[in-house]
């Protein structure tokens, strides 16, 4: 399946406190919690393809973890693109 992806994030994962508010807030549901903890032991969000760049996650996050970008042209993902990490 190819997913149209209009936006993306920078996630300051070490600042995340694992509250999962972003997970519930994301309209296309493209955020998912990591399986291992960050520096403080908290799980943190990871981004799947399909982000719209709507900034909902950034709005709801109490810990200022997100920077949101909109692509000039939508990106299509069907395989792990360059730079994406495989699921651990």
């Amino acid at each position, binding site marked *: 399946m190819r997913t149209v992806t209009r936006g993306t994030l920078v996630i300051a994962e070490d600042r995340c406190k694992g509250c999962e508010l972003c997970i519930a807030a994301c309209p296309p549901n493209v955020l998912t919690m990591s399986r291992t903890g960050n*520096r*403080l*032991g*908290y799980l943190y969000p990871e981004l799947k393809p399909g982000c719209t760049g709507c900034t909902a996650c950034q709005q709801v996050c109490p810990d200022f973890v997100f920077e949101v970008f909109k692509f000039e042209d939508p990106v299509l993902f069907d395989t792990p693109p360059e730079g994406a990490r495989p699921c651990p």
Partner: protein
Amino acid sequence: MELFISGIGGQGVQLAGKVLALAAVAEGRHVMLSGDYGGHMRGGSSVGTVVVGPGPLRALPVLPSAGSAIAMHNQYWENVGGRLRPGSLILAEASIAPALPGMEGHRLVQVPATAIATEMGARMAAGMVLLGAYAAMTGIVAVDSLVAAMKEQIPVYRRQHIEANERAIRAGADALPALGAPFDLDGAPLREAV
């Protein structure tokens, strides 16, 4: 006997101290327990101090020195390491033990507490493993007293963890033969418990 328990917030340092203290009280000993931790956040320094004696204690709540320690993490260890008297007993979580500085002149015992706890499916119970090992090695309280104290201390809404904690305490105690000879706290250069 004085004990420092050192670790980081979230590891269960304060719980371990409380369980040991309660066990000692249940056995009729006089106890002082103090905790030093920075707020409610994870990841900060957390130190517990336990003093046990046969009669009324004169111990200070900020203990200038002690003869034994449990090290759950190497971060913030300096707070504690510098206050150990020569010849102290140090029970350390095995994974961080190599990172502890200044072990010369002390008896360092490495306990694979996290490994044992994880094996039992209760990763967070590493502190209980260390506690069981400490009790077995020093004889300061009976292992059954520790178990009873742990049950008393766990709040109602955490009842589900009781069983795992008990197993962890016992597993720690059972590890004694593998860890070496018992340690005579009174044999350590220990003054009357002030």
